[in-house]
Structures are given as C-alpha cells and as structure tokens.
C-alpha cells in the first residue's frame, strides 16, 4: 500500500462497486445454468436440478462463496445508494430545459432498476434462501414439506404454477435486470480502467448481448409454467 492515508474516495467506492458488480454478473450465469434444469430439457432434468441444488447447498467452497456473494450484493447496493445520493445533491438547482445531451438511455434508470432488483431479491430470499436457512416456514403442498434444497424443484414448480403474482414480479425484476446490465456491464470495465480502442467495442457488444440473453433465460422458466400450467 502507498504511505498515503487510506481514504474512501469517490473512485474507491466506484471501483469496489464495479468489482462486486462483476462478481454478481458471473454468479448470474452459474445460477441460470442450474435454474434452466427446472425446465424439461432432458429426461432426468429434475434429478440434475436437485443434485445441483444439493451441491450448491453443501459444498464447502460454494458455501464460502455464499458469504462472498452476500457481501457483494450488500456492498454493491449500499455503495450504489451512497453514490446516488451524492450525485443527486451535486447538481444543486435543476435546469429548466431538460438535457439534450447524447447519453446511454438505460444509464438514466440504473438506480431505479437496481432498487427493483434489490426488492425482488428480498422476495426471492423469502421464498427460497430463508427456507433453506430455516428462517421461514416452507409451504406444505400436496403433503410435501419443503425443508431443504432437495425439494426446491417442487417448490419452484409450485410457485411458478400457482403464484401468478410472483411470476409476474419475477419477470418484471428480470426485465429490470436486463436494463441494469445493459449499462452496468461495460460501465464496470470502464470504472476498472479497462478502456481500449481495440477491445472496448467488443466489451460493449458482449454487455448488450449478456443483458438480453441472461434475463431472457431466467424469464423463460416462469413463462413455461404460466403457459403449460
């Protein structure tokens, strides 16, 4: 470390937020890979999903990463709110004429989409993660109690088939995530100083693609159960 006094500057906050954000971006892919097994894509998809859920719930490396994941979510959200409040107060008096500057359309809504995702995460934890931790009583459906991740398949199918409101909120949350990622993906690279004439256009393209494909992958799951019953 440098001998200068460590201060939590705007750049320290932004860089920390970008690192946490990139970790969450990678986690989304892992989570989607497991979630897609809920759909009948192979004959033994249910067993594969249960095995994956069991692995994620018991493997000690994954459990260690669970702590990192929770920290990443909280740090990313907290720093996002702190930076946003500073940004709102930095203007002072607002302009009479709305800005006509050319900017990324999605970037204007990043805090709102972030808040929506965070609120959805609360609901998601209530339905799955808190049940696993034993903090919330699992629903009893068709005489099956859902005490552990072994029954997450039944729980997911039950929720997507019977709780229309949750499915709608789920879809809205992932549309918000898509809008959020559309700006956030390339923004994280820029914040980390990774801007290069040769590579930045590719990073931006991958970011746009990722912000469409990943949310779409998640949205297909409730849609399937809403349509197929």
């Amino acid at each position, binding site marked *: *470390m440098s001998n200068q006094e460590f201060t939590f500057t705007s750049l320290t906050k*932004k*860089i920390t937020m970008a690192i946490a954000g990139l970790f969450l971006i990678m986690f989304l892919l892992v989570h989607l890979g497991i979630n897609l097994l809920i759909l009948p894509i192979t004959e033994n998809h249910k067993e594969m999903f249960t095995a994956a859920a069991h692995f994620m719930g018991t493997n000690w490396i994954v459990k260690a990463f669970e702590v990192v994941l929770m920290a990443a979510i909280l740090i990313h959200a907290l720093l996002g709110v702190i930076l946003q409040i500073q940004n709102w107060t*930095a203007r002072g008096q*607002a302009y009479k004429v709305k800005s006509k500057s050319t*900017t990324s359309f999605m970037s204007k809504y990043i805090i709102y989409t972030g808040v929506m995702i965070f609120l959805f995460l609360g609901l998601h934890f209530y339905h799955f993660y808190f049940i696993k931790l034993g903090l919330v009583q699992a629903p009893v459906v068709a005489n099956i109690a859902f005490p552990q991740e072994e029954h997450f398949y039944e729980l997911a199918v039950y929720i997507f088939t019977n709780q229309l409101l949750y499915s709608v909120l789920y879809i809205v949350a992932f549309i918000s995530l898509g809008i959020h990622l559309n*700006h956030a993906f390339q923004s994280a690279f820029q914040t980390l100083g*990774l801007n290069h004439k040769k590579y930045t256009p590719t990073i931006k393209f991958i970011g746009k693609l990722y912000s469409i494909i990943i949310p779409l992958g998640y949205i297909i799951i409730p849609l399937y159960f809403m349509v197929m019953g």
Partner: protein
Amino acid sequence: MKITLKIWRQKNAKAKGKFVDYELNEVSTEMSFLEMLDALNEKLIISGGEPIAFEHDCREGICGCCSLYINGQPHGPEEKTTTCELHMRSFKDGSTITIEPFRAKAFPVMKDLIVDRNGFDKIMAAGGFVSIDAGSAQDSNSILIKKKNSDEAFNSATCIGCGACVAACKNASAMLFVSAKVSQFALLEQGKVEAKERVVAMVNKMDDLGFGNCTNTYACEAECPKGISVANIARMNREFLSAKLT
C-alpha cells in the same frame, strides 16, 4: 431573424434568480452567439436596464471562459463548439432560446450567467503540476517518448477547463476534466515521477469540492467542445488504482 430569449437573471450569489424574456428582432445569422448577447446588452443599457452578465474572453474557443447552458446543452447545439464559436445560423428564425448558467453545487452562480469555476483551479492546485526539477531544455533524444503517448498527452491537454463536462453530466461530475489533467502528466516522463501523489490529491480535492460521481453515461464526452475522450477517465481510474495498490 427574430428570436425570443429566456435568460436566467440573478443579482448576486445570494439573490433568488428568475427567468426573464427578451425579444430581439434584427439578429443576423452571421452574428456569433455572444455578439447577439452584446446586442441585447446594448439595447438594455440604452433603455436604462441592467446588462446581462456573462463570461467571455478570447472568443476563439481556447480560453475556456465562455460557458452558458443553451436549450439544454452546454455551449449550445453544435458539436465540439464553444459558446463563443457558436453562430446564430444554428438557430431558426422565430425560435425561443433558453439560456441558463452551468448548474452544479460546486459552481455557484455569482451573477446572471456567471458561475464560480474556481473549483477547477483548486483541483489543479492540489496536484495538476510538475514540481520536480526538470532541468533546462533537453536534447531531443535524451527523453524518449512514444509518438502515441505524446499525441494522447497533447489531446488531453487540449481541455480548456470550461466546465461543460460538469454542466452536462447528470451527476455534475468533474471526472472528465480531472482525468484529462491527470492524463496529460501521466503520459509524459516528467509527469510520471509524481503521478501517484498527483492522482490521489486531485481526486480527493474533487470529492471535497462536492462534484458528483461518474456513472459512465458519457454525456461529458458528447458535450466537450474539445472532444476529450472518456478513455481519460479510464486512465485516471487505472492511475488511482495503481497509486492505492502500490
């Protein structure tokens, strides 16, 4: 051409300002934007009114004095053009032009359209200089600098410090300005010696002055009259990260 102007009038830093409407009937398309304001001021002075205070100096786009937020854009509608280089041919006959001062908490309004941009000078005073003894003029081959680096340093140094980046940014962030100044030194050998201390000091000062944080919307780059690239912000972030980690 005939135009209607809606201009922010504010007696002093403490007074509450308001928009005042003015009509100008004989505006030539050949007039510069500031000449049009000069014409309005002459009219106001003749009629015993208070002329509109606005900042200007070189009127050739190099001093960074002129500002003005014109119809929702710093320096008006033309790309890579300062207010003083803007001409009335960029506006339609009969149009209404709204002129506001650059808005940022760190740029308080002093009078009418003049804002206090001393914050930029304070950031420069915090580290935007080379204090090592660079000696007298060197032999051209004694300090080898890549052409790419000297070009980039020169491009960064073309920042005139007008504050359009702050005015355009939805967060009133000064990061494009600070990053351009950090870059112009960091890319050259004489500047590299104090690069770590410089970037930390300038970022700290920028934060202290209450500028907002960059959210990479790139409005600053779009509105910069000198075309300063956001690649400078990435370089500043790298320089900062390197200063903190080593």
